[in-house]
């Protein structure tokens, strides 16, 4: 039986973490490679990097980060942000990332999903989805709408439809972020996660809202997610990944306990 995955997410800008993570001894560090090493040692099953670098001239800095991460940790990791072409994907994958993730770029240009899947295999292509709850309507029958620009722009695309469409186009995994829950630390959007995860045949990573190990257990059991993305709760050292995993294991959720 597969283990449920715990995946810390690191936001990177110009080669530095946007928010420092707390290390042993409460030292704040800003180097994404050191942060990745710390989470690898704590038992992270995978790591997600989001590059929020504004200008494309700075992309080389991220490629250098990817190369250094690949020499340091020996678990899968993915890179998202600013990937607009198959060539962008190739650079990131050849630098050592296992997967790339595309979000608004895929909404604007859906064939990018199939082109990526054809070039590198579906398992390399993660679809990032930013979703907001809305009134169900003829246009948005599921009551969940795709949003971009951090939730400021509504796209008129139904999230349920888009998840199925992306699977058909060849996406290998979905990272499903609830903009409503994101940053609240009050728990994941269980209903949304359950809806998407039980209706696609590719793994779903739940994202947004994690504050406690119980939240993670809920989304992995009731929400049927295959993996859980976490950020603040480990970056600020409220919990370590090992503590979260020990809790999950104790609650009957299969996790990887030896690394």
């Amino acid at each position: 039986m597969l283990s449920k995955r715990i995946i810390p997410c690191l936001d990177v800008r110009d080669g530095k973490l946007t928010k420092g993570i707390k290390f042993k001894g409460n030292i704040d560090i800003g180097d994404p490679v050191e942060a990745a090493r710390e989470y690898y040692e704590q038992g992270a099953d995978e790591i997600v990097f989001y590059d929020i670098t504004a200008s494309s001239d700075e992309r080389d800095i991220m490629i250098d980060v990817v190369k250094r991460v690949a020499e340091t940790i020996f678990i899968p990791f993915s890179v998202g942000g600013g990937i607009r072409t198959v060539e962008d994907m190739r650079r990131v994958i050849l630098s050592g990332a296992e997967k790339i993730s595309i979000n608004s770029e895929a909404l604007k240009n859906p064939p990018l999903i199939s082109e990526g899947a054809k070039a590198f295999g579906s398992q390399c292509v993660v679809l990032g989805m930013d979703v907001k709850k809305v009134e169900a309507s003829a246009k948005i029958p599921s009551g969940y709408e795709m949003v971009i620009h951090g939730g400021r722009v509504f796209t008129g695309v139904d999230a349920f439809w888009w998840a199925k469409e992306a699977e058909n186009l060849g996406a290998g995994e979905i990272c499903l972020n609830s903009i409503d829950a994101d940053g609240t630390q009050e728990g994941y959007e269980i209903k949304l996660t359950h809806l998407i995860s039980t209706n696609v045949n590719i793994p779903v990573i739940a994202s947004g809202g994690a504050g406690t190990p119980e939240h993670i257990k809920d989304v992995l059991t009731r929400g049927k997610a295959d993996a859980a993305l976490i950020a603040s709760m480990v970056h600020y050292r409220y919990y370590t990944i090992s503590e979260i995993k020990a809790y999950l294991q104790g609650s009957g959720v299969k996790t990887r306990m030896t690394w």
Partner: protein
Amino acid sequence: MIGIIDYQAGNLTSVARALRYLGEPCLVSDDPKVLKQASRIIFPGVGAAGEAMANLRQTHLDQWIPEWVDKGKPILGICLGTQVIFEYSEENDAKCLGIIPGAVKRFPKDLQEDCMPLKIPHMGWNSVAFQKDHPVFRDIPDEAQFYFVHSYYPAPADDRLVIGWTDYGQLFCAALARRNLVAVQFHPEKSGRPGLQILANFCRWGGEDA
């Protein structure tokens, strides 16, 4: 020197990086003349069996790999590399190298666990129940897990070759060994410390049987 077989099937950089981390010199090549300088061979790969076989034929590696195996020198198959050493793969209906009797099969569509449908590919961390002691799998904790990404699984004709079984709605062969050949379906280069341990063990293994 470890030779890594390059046949345009991705993932080679991760294996090379893991070996570098372990301090093991390696060369990556699609040329038998270069690869024969190596003392042992890693046959990795991600992708589809049909295309992989076409690439291997083009570089004559389809003949060279079985010869290497016959010489008794150590070889480690990983993921797609493991699959193409069988006789046949259901993926692309591909005739493969035929080094190990058996076929590579697709996970059935109606795969279930506790009445819940299972997703395909089998992607993520899973346990491997090791059946016997083998030098390449030495010092691996019983509860260790390994990283898998695949929709097809190896089914050797002779179960006695199976070193490790994994459960994904059904049991399948995750690791096998026959004399100087060891092959795994998971990715040791992406499986943290236990995976690195397997690579390190392989680098010290002379190819003798368990």
